[in-house]
């Protein structure tokens, strides 16, 4: 007994058998492989040639291309392969825009991956087209009650089924430079409304040394600010039927607000990418930025060593528009979805893999690859000292708390979803991919157009080029 307990591979194998994850035959085959080595494995393989010969190849696409996460995924996949010699997992990480295009092409060619990450609005669109299938079995196997309600909420649809499984979550926050507060008399904790914020912004703007706020001007990221501010102003960019509601007072108010913020943005903001805004904050070029937990990596790269701490890089509150009741932030919650056109045995194998992946010791490795950004979907982890005491999580504790707060108050919504029911609008994905909303903002903020005229034009384009084509 002692001997198998000292071997981690065997230990896992036995546990899998106990948990019923492995069938008896598979267990014996693996056991043979693990104990007697290659010769025994091939012998038993000879007894069951079909199983041993035909590997199930599973293709899984995720949106975490950064090297640390790739290394973690690779390690988990390798461990999984040791247990499941008949399954081969191809896990590929890519940027979101890449993924979107590849998915569109793969769906059209009816050769989807087995499973992939995607955005909430894509789940809606794929579900409507019958391209994906529910994953209730997977969610139940992990335990619904272990998962944050704020995470479950965006996976569950009115039919009562779960159509996706979030891989990890993060929430967008307003980051501020604590060192720039000195001598200004500004106390960000007192901010409640846009007006509070606008009142103090001039004191945090020391252009050209540093600017009050940095925003990204690339369309995909302009969309984020459009919906977060519209939501914080009590509105939505879609009406009850999913038609554009851009001429609403809430959206027009958002545009007027943006115009006022323009004075505190770097002159070249319209060509800044989102990642450039993060490095600008780390390098001290901006007092504030909308940021994610992964910004910690930028701080370690670009900030002077003595400043790499949460006293300098603080979390400041997001504010509420004149027509709103609560601030709104973006929820990063890409779910795993399973494709209807993928072969059954591939999907079964992929689910097997995800069960393995979400097991504590494996999932921990994944989350720890970007410790303050890929946050665990399991509530219990936040009470687990081993999780919370990870040096990075300890170091950036205020960042962690700020993100948790959004989840507690339920005001972290997925991209372009201002009101919870917007989640059911099937063409949000096409709106997100198009530059229409960004053009509207640029017309108003950079080219001085009348907000109402720009909003009407954008709404007409959404109706003509997106909804019209979707219905037609």
């Amino acid at each position, binding site marked *: 007994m002692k001997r198998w307990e000292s071997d981690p591979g065997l230990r896992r194998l036995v546990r899998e058998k106990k948990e019923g994850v492995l069938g008896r035959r598979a267990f014996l085959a693996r056991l043979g492989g693990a104990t007697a080595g290659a010769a025994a494995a091939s012998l038993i393989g000879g007894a069951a040639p079909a199983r041993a010969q035909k590997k199930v190849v599973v293709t899984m696409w995720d949106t975490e291309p950064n090297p640390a996460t790739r290394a973690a995924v690779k390690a988990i996949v390798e461990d999984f392969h040791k247990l499941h010699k008949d399954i081969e997992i191809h896990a590929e990480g890519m940027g979101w825009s890449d993924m979107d295009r590849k998915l569109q092409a793969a*769906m059209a060619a009816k050769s989807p991956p087995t499973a992939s990450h995607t955005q909430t609005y894509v789940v809606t669109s794929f579900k409507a087209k019958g391209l994906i299938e529910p994953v209730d079995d997977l969610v139940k196997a992990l335990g619904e009650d272990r998962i944050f309600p704020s995470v479950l909420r965006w996976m569950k649809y009115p039919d009562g089924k779960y159509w996706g499984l979030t891989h990890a979550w993060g929430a967008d926050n307003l980051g501020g430079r604590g060192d720039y507060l000195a001598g200004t008399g500004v106390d960000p904790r007192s901010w409640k409304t846009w007006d509070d914020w606008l009142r103090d912004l001039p004191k945090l703007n020391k252009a*050209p040394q540093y600017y009050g706020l940095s925003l990204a001007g690339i*369309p995909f990221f*302009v969309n984020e600010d459009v919906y977060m501010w519209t939501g914080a102003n009590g509105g939505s960019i879609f009406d009850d039927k999913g038609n554009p509601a851009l001429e609403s007072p809430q959206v027009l108010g958002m545009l007027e607000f943006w115009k006022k913020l323009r004075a505190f943005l770097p002159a070249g903001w*319209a060509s800044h990418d989102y990642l450039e805004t993060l490095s600008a904050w780390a*390098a001290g070029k901006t007092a504030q930025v909308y940021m994610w937990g992964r910004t910690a990596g930028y701080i370690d790269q670009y900030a002077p060593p003595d400043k790499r701490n949460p006293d300098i890089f603080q979390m400041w509150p997001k504010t509420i528009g004149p027509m709103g009741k609560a601030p709104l932030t973006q929820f990063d919650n890409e779910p795993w979805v399973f494709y209807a056109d993928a072969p059954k045995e591939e999907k079964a194998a992929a689910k097997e893999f995800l069960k393995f992946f979400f097991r504590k010791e494996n999932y921990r490795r994944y989350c720890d690859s970007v410790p303050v950004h890929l946050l665990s979907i399991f509530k219990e982890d936040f009470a687990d000292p081993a999780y919370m005491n990870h040096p990075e999580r300890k170091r950036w504790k205020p960042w962690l708390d700020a993100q948790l707060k959004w989840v507690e108050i339920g005001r972290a919504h997925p991209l372009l979803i201002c009101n919870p029911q917007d989640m059911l609008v099937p063409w949000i994905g096409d709106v997100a991919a198009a530059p229409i909303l*960004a053009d509207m903002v640029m017309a108003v903020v950079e080219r001085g157009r009348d907000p109402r005229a720009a909003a009407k034009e954008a709404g007409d384009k959404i109706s003509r080029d997106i909804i019209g084509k979707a219905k037609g």
Partner: protein
Amino acid sequence: MWRRRRDALIGMGLLLPSAALVFAFTLFPVGYNVWLGFYAKHSLRATSTWVGLGNYAQLLVDPDFWRSVWLATVYAVASTTLQIVAGVAGALILHRRFPGCDFLRGVALFPYMIPTIIAVFVWRWLMNDLYGVIPYLLGTLAIPGMPEAWLTHSTIMWVLVVLSVWTFFPFVLVNVLARLQTIPPELYDAARVDGASAFRQFLNVTLPQLRNVLLIVLLLRGIWMFTKFDVPWLLGFGGGAGEAIRTLPVFTYQRSFTYYQAGMGAALSNVMLALLLMAVTLYFVAFPPEADENDA
């Protein structure tokens, strides 16, 4: 007689592989595209609907289309003109041999040879408003009214033009240089004897000799700049400040691959094809290719 026939057959036979490749990958796709322009078609799905001239009718009343045509025209005119000026100047500088001449010729060719993506990203970095070296150097000159940032709605077109001149002027330079080297030196000697200044010599001897090469370079560069996709796309990504450089090719790409309107994208390509054919026809009517006729 049979010999001529055999010759003709061999000639055509030798041309066959090229002809087949050009037909399959150029002429056939262009024809297919003309046909596609009459359909509403999703770029990724198999279905398509006949809409006749519907795509073109929609374009005629689409202000975004006309704006993209206007931006492409501004871009093509400005960048082509400056490329020719820079190219001719560069060729004159490199025409006579001097120590280090070969090295400088290599360096001057270089911007044309490096991948577009590198050229654009280097310029994005040079012009970055927060960390870029060029805004910094210009800032030290303390010229009143100098923009703080260049990659903005009002100035990104100029960055695009300068970057394009940098990238493409070597094409002009090399063509002009090659032609310069075939001008008989006696022509200059005669002009010099008549006491002509260097500028007069350029005007009276060099320029007439360069006329033909400049005309064809103008035609080619004009067409290629008007239809350039990668440079404006990579500089502006089709949005944000890039909205101010959403030229016709960028507009075409976005119709085809962000709105997935393949039929509309095809119609836009056909508009560009028609403009190209018009330009070429006009050109050959205005400047009949005499030299070419007898050796063809």
